[in-house]
């Protein structure tokens, strides 16, 4: 645990000094909060129930995109940055275990993603009072809260797993960012489904998505852990 905390602190210090990472982690949440508010305000003025549900569902999905996208910048830099600086070998020469190193890298991306997502949701709730005349009734419901607090960790973990797999194979940050954008698929696919539905998000739908995400997260993390071994890093990573 001590080594994981040491690594987390190092990762965050580096990320905070990287303007690109910082911008990516802060701009998108601000944009999504604004977009979600806009959807809610628009939805309240719509009389057609199906259209209103689509707008509200879209607002929810903005908060499910955040935990998948925010870790991309941090995780890509965390691995490709190490490759570019050739700093992994000295790190691997310490007593840190492969799993500690993996968890240090993964949590360094997942924790800020969750904190920022939930803080953004809080900000959205707060801003909805002056802008939407109060918290909309469909927002503080079990499906919404289950999605915000249950699905976001799974989305983050899946995203980090995909990013780590891609970054382990990519030799430069641009290629890693490009291919890591696949990590956005898990929240995008439900967004399309939700947007076409004429009913509000239900517990059943969140449950199905949660089940799929658990399988996806376990699968990609298992692959990422296998790739994240000293032997692999030193002999196979380019």
């Amino acid at each position, binding site marked *: 645990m*001590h*080594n994981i905390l*040491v*690594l987390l602190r*190092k990762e965050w*210090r*580096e990320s905070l*000094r*990287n303007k690109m990472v910082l911008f990516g982690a802060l701009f998108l949440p601000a944009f999504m909060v604004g977009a979600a508010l806009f959807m809610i305000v628009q939805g309240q003025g719509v009389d057609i129930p199906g259209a209103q549900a689509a707008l509200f569902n879209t607002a929810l999905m903005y908060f499910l995109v955040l935990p998948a996208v925010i870790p991309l910048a941090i995780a890509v830099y965390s691995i490709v940055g190490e490759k570019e*600086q*050739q*700093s*992994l*070998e*000295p*790190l*691997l*020469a*310490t*007593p*840190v*275990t492969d799993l500690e190193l993996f968890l240090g890298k993964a949590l360094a991306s997942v924790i800020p993603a969750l904190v920022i997502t939930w803080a953004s949701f809080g900000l959205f709730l707060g801003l909805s009072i002056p802008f939407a005349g109060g918290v909309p009734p469909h927002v503080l419901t079990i499906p919404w809260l289950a999605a915000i607090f249950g699905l976001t960790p799974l989305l983050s973990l899946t995203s980090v797993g995909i990013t780590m797999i891609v970054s382990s194979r990519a030799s430069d940050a641009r290629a890693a960012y490009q291919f890591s954008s696949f990590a956005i698929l898990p929240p995008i696919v439900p967004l399309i489904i939700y947007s076409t539905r004429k009913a509000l998000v239900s517990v059943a739908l969140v449950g199905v998505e949660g089940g799929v995400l658990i399988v996806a997260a376990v699968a990609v993390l298992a692959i990422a852990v296998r790739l994240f071994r*000293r*032997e692999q890093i*030193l*002999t196979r990573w380019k």
Partner: protein
Amino acid sequence: MIRSEGLTRRFGAVTAVDGLDLVVERGEVFGFLGPNGAGKTTTVRMLAALIAPTAGGAHIGELQLGRDNRAIRRRVGVLTEAPGLYRRLSARDNLLLFARLHAVSDPSSRVERYLRLFDLWDRRDDLVGTLSKGMRQKLALARALVHDPDVLFLDEPTAGLDPEASRRVRELVESLRSKERTIFLCTHNLDEADRLCDRVELFKARIVALGKPAELKERMYGRRTVIHFGDRPQGLERALDLPFILDTEWADDALVVGLSDPERENPILVRRLVELGAEVRYVNELRVSLEDLYLDLMEEHDA
């Protein structure tokens, strides 16, 4: 301190290290020399418990490679060929990270000690990205030492350093030797290896030669005395009828004489030359550089 038996590493069809048997004593500075691609880095990675051997094994002290990898990594320090520092962290934060990962007690004061030792204390809060190449190399060396390892693997420790800093590194290596630290030095700077190493191994996937630099030179070239004359005496070497002379050759105006026991034979040789009317100006032993030895042995090995 380091002992390997049949240490082998293959990458597919390529054998990078082939059955390396090695013993490095505690407090020894051991030079591991070879061309690029000879398998030096792979050997260091195996001995530092970073990658596993395909066959054979090794011990660091009483610790066994494969079984005690984490404990081995606690006891060794590795200076990699590239400094591999975190450019967005300060010099101090770079060292603190490694001191903490090695669970050094009171990491702050340990880091301060090494930053001062390498004249980096005044730049402690500067980001590594702003430091010169030489400063980064010193910082990387400090990082390898920050947990006071028993065994130090150094890959090109003076690369990029100015002469003054290089001398300080050599002095540091000397002082570590006096503290019974074992140093495994990979370098292409053969003059440095000649000066620092108790023994050297010339390596190209397998051992080409192993021994003390002076012994290896003697084994390869014998011991040779160089005699400088006022005027080059004609036919002198033919007149030299001493039985202990192994061979003679002229190098410009100096006569190079192969001898088996120069301490005993030099006075007799000089006396005989004077008797033959030669004007002997001065006499010295032929110094062969480790570079000459290295190049000749590698050429012989390749042939």
